[in-house]
C-alpha cells in the first residue's frame, strides 16, 4: 500500500481519478460561464445537474441507449435554462431567488420522477455505464497516457468544449454581443442587440451543459442514480467560475485542481488511517474555499451580473 504512494501506478491512478472527478464540474462550469458572461447568475445549476443525472439515467435504462440518455439530459437542462430565463430575464425577478427556486424544484422533481419510474426498490437499478475509449498512440505514453487518454468519450467532449467556449466568447460575433450584454446591457440594447434573446440563448445552452455534466455522474462516473449524486458539484462549478475569473480555460484549470484534490482524498481514505473519513471528504471543499479567498479579491465579475434589465426602467 505505502509503496503505491510513491509508485507510478499511484500517480496514474490519481490523475485518472482527477480527470473523472473534474469532468462534471467542467461541463457545469462552462454552462455557468455562458450564463454569467451574459449577465445572469444561474444558481439553478445544482438542481439542473441533478435533473440531468436523473433524466440521463432513466432514459438510458428505458431506451437502452446511453447517448440518448445524454441527449435527454441536455434537453432537460435546456428546459430548466429556459425556465430560468423566463423568471430572471423576462419577468425580471431576482436571479438569486429564481436560481435557488429552480434548484429546490429540481431536487424534489428528480426524486419524484425517479420514484414514478422505479418505485422504491431495495436494490437500486443500474445501467451498464460508458466504457473507456483509449486513444491510439497517446494512451501508450507512460504515466499520463493511461490517465488522460484512456477515458470516457464524455471526458474528451468536455475537453473539446473548453476551447470551443473560449473561441465562442472571444472570437465570434455572438461572443462579442454576449459579453457586451453581460457587461452593459444598456450599451448592447442601444447597439441593436436583442438583450433578452442573448440572455435566454446563453441560459438555454448553459443549461444543456449542466444537464450533461449531471448525466456524466450517473452514466459514466457511477452506474446508478442516488439522491446525493451531484453532491454540491454545481456549487463548486459556480466557485470555479469566480476562481477562473469568468474565463473558460482558467475555470477548467480550477476544476482540474478540484478533481485532483477529490481523487487524492479518496486515496487518503483508502489508506485506512485512524481519522474519520469525513475529514478527507471535506479537503477539496476547504481548499476551494481557501483558493476562492485568495483569488476572488482580484475577480472582476461582468458588470451587468445580477441586474435585471428592462428598457424603460429608470437610470439607463
Amino acid at each position, binding site marked *: 500500500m505505502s509503496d503505491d504512494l510513491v509508485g507510478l501506478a499511484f500517480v496514474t491512478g490519481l490523475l485518472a481519478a482527477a480527470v473523472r472527478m473534474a469532468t462534471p464540474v467542467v461541463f457545469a462550469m462552462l454552462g455557468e460561464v455562458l450564463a454569467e458572461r451574459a449577465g445572469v447568475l444561474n444558481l439553478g445549476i445544482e438542481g439542473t445537474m441533478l435533473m440531468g443525472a436523473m433524466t440521463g439515467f432513466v432514459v438510458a435504462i428505458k431506451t437502452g441507449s446511453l447517448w440518448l440518455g445524454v441527449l435527454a439530459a441536455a434537453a432537460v437542462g435546456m428546459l430548466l435554462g429556459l425556465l430560468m430565463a423566463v423568471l430572471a430575464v423576462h419577468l425580471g425577478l431576482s436571479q438569486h431567488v429564481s436560481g435557488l427556486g429552480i434548484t429546490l424544484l429540481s431536487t424534489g422533481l428528480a426524486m419524484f420522477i425517479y420514484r414514478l419510474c422505479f418505485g422504491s426498490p431495495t436494490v437500486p437499478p443500474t445501467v451498464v455505464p460508458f466504457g473507456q475509449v483509449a486513444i491510439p498512440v497517446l494512451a501508450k505514453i507512460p504515466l499520463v497516457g493511461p490517465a488522460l487518454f484512456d477515458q470516457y468519450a464524455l471526458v474528451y467532449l468536455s475537453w473539446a468544449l473548453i476551447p470551443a467556449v473560449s473561441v465562442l466568447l472571444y472570437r465570434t460575433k455572438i461572443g*462579442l454581443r454576449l459579453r457586451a450584454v453581460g*457587461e*452593459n446591457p*444598456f*450599451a448592447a440594447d*442601444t447597439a*441593436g442587440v436583442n438583450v433578452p434573446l442573448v440572455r435566454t440563448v446563453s441560459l438555454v445552452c448553459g443549461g444543456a451543459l449542466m444537464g450533461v455534466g449531471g448525466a456524466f455522474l450517473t452514466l459514466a462516473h457511477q452506474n446508478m442514480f442516488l439522491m446525493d449524486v451531484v453532491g454540491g458539484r454545481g456549487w463548486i462549478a459556480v466557485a470555479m467560475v469566480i476562481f477562473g475569473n469568468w474565463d473558460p480555460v482558467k475555470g477548467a484549470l480550477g476544476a482540474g485542481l478540484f478533481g485532483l484534490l477529490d481523487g487524492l482524498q479518496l486515496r487518503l481514505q483508502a489508506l485506512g488511517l485512524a481519522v474519520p473519513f469525513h475529514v478527507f471528504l471535506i479537503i477539496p471543499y476547504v481548499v476551494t474555499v481557501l483558493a476562492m479567498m485568495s483569488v476572488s479579491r482580484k475577480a472582476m465579475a461582468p*458588470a451587468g451580473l445580477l441586474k435585471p434589465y428592462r428598457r424603460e426602467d429608470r437610470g439607463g
Partner: protein
Amino acid sequence: MPVSEAAAAAAAGPIGSASCRPLIEMSRISKRFLDVVATRDVDFAVFPGEICALLGENGAGKTTLMNVLFGFYTADSGEIRVQGEPIATPSPKEAIRRGIQMIHQHFALVPPMSVLENVILGHETGAGPFLDLDEGLARLAALQSRFGMNLDPAARVWTLSVGEQQKVEILKALYRGARVLIMDEPTAVLVPSEIVELFKTLRTFASQGNGVVFISHKLNEVMEISSRIVVLRNGQVVASRATARTTPRELASLMVGGEVVERARRSGGGPGDPVLEISGLEASNDKGVPAVKRVDLTVRQREIVGIAGVSGNGQRELAEVVFGLRTPSGGSVTVGATRLVSGDPSSSIAAGMARIPEDRIATGLLMSLSIADNLILENHGSGEFLSFCLMDHDRIRRHGERLIHEYHIKATGPAVVAGSLSGGNLQKVILARSLSSRPRVIVAAQPTRGLDVGAAQYIHGRLFEERDRGAAIVLISEDLDEILAVSDRIVVMYEGRIVGEVPADRAARDQLGLWMSGVVG
C-alpha cells in the same frame, strides 16, 4: 455668442421654405409612464443640414421624446417617418437601420472592451460567425481621419477620459451610417476645449446633409451651435424658432412659461475674516491612489470660492475630506477656531458646516423616506425634534411643511417619499436641509448639475443670499459658466493640486480652460 455662418445658413432651409424634405418626422407622439404624461401629441422634425436644439425644463420630456425617436421607448400613440417612410415597429435596431442614432447622457459603452469592439458591437465585421477585427479597424481608421479624430482602437474604454469616451460614442454612430444624430446633454461633462471640438464635429456632420438634435440646458451653447430651437414645456412643444431670431431671455421665458427673474449678484459687503482653512490636505481616492495632493485653501466670510476642474481631478475627494466623509492622509481643516476631527462628519456639522453633495441620490437623500424625515437627517439628534428621547413626528412634520413652503419644493406634502420628486426638487430638499441650520461654511458640489435654467438660478440665488448673510462657500463645479457666474474667487484643480487661482472679475475663460487641462504658466 456669435452664431456661426454654417448654422445661420442651415436655419434658412427648414424654416420658411416648404420644399425641404425632413430627414425624420414625428407626429402626435404621446408617451406616459404610469401616472406621468411625459410627452403629449408632440410633432417634431429634423431637416437635412440642421442642428436642432431641444430645450426645456427638467422633466419637460426631452429625453423621453428622443428615446421614442430612437425606438428605445415605445410611444403610446403617434407616428415616426424616416424620409417619408413610416417606421412600423420601432426599436433601436430598426432606428439604427434607418440612420437614427442616439448618444445618451449616460454613455452606452462597455468599459472593459476596446474602442474598436465598442464601435462595431452589433455591426460586427467578419465572415460567417467569426469576428474579423481587421476589417472593422480599416473602416474605423477611415472614419477617424474624416472627422479628425485619433483614438487608439485597441485602448480599453475605461482608460479613456470622458471626452474621449464621447468620441467613441460618436464614432459608433458614424460607423453605423447615422443620418440623424441625437445628443442628450453632451456638453455637461466636457471641458471648454472639448466642447469646441465637439461643435466642430457636429458642424462637419450636419454640413454633409445630416441632421443633429442637440439637448442642453446651457443657453449660450444652444445659441452658438444650433440653427433652430424647439422648446418643450410639460411634454408639449411650445415654440420652434430660428436661432438667429431669438434670444436667451426669450428662450428662458418660453421654457418656464413666464419671466425668469435674475437675482442680484451681491448686496452685502466684501469678504470678511477667514472661516474655512484647509492646509496641506492630502487624501487618496477609493482605489487608494493619491487624489488630493497638498491642497491649501482659505475661504472667508461672505465669499464664494469656485473650484473649477475636469471631473476626476480630486474635487470630489476634496469635498468629502473637508466634510469628514473621507479620512485624509495628511493636513488639516479648520472652521473658525475649531480644528475638525478628520473622518468625522458630526464634528463638521457641529462646527457649522453644511454640504450639498455631488450625488443627490447616492449620498444626499434617502429615497424611500419622506421629505420631512430627509429634512432632519443631519440634525435629528439635536433635541429640537425629540420629545422624551423619541422622535416628535408632529414637530418633524411642521418643520417639513415650513421648509417645503420656504424653498418652493413642488410636492403635495411633507409625507411624500423623496424618491418621487424630480431632480430639481430633490436638490431643493437638500438645500433646505443644509441651509436651514444657518451654516458658517457651505461645501456645494455640482449643485446645479442636470438642473434646468430656472432651478439653477434659484439655487444660485440662494447661494448668493447665504453668502451675503455671512457664509463662506466652496462651490465645486465642472461647469465653467456656473463657476464664472457665481464665484468671487476661482481656483482650478488639476490632478489633485490647485494649479491656478484668480479673482472672478479678472478670470478669462481660456486661461481657466488651459489650467483645467493641466497647462500651467
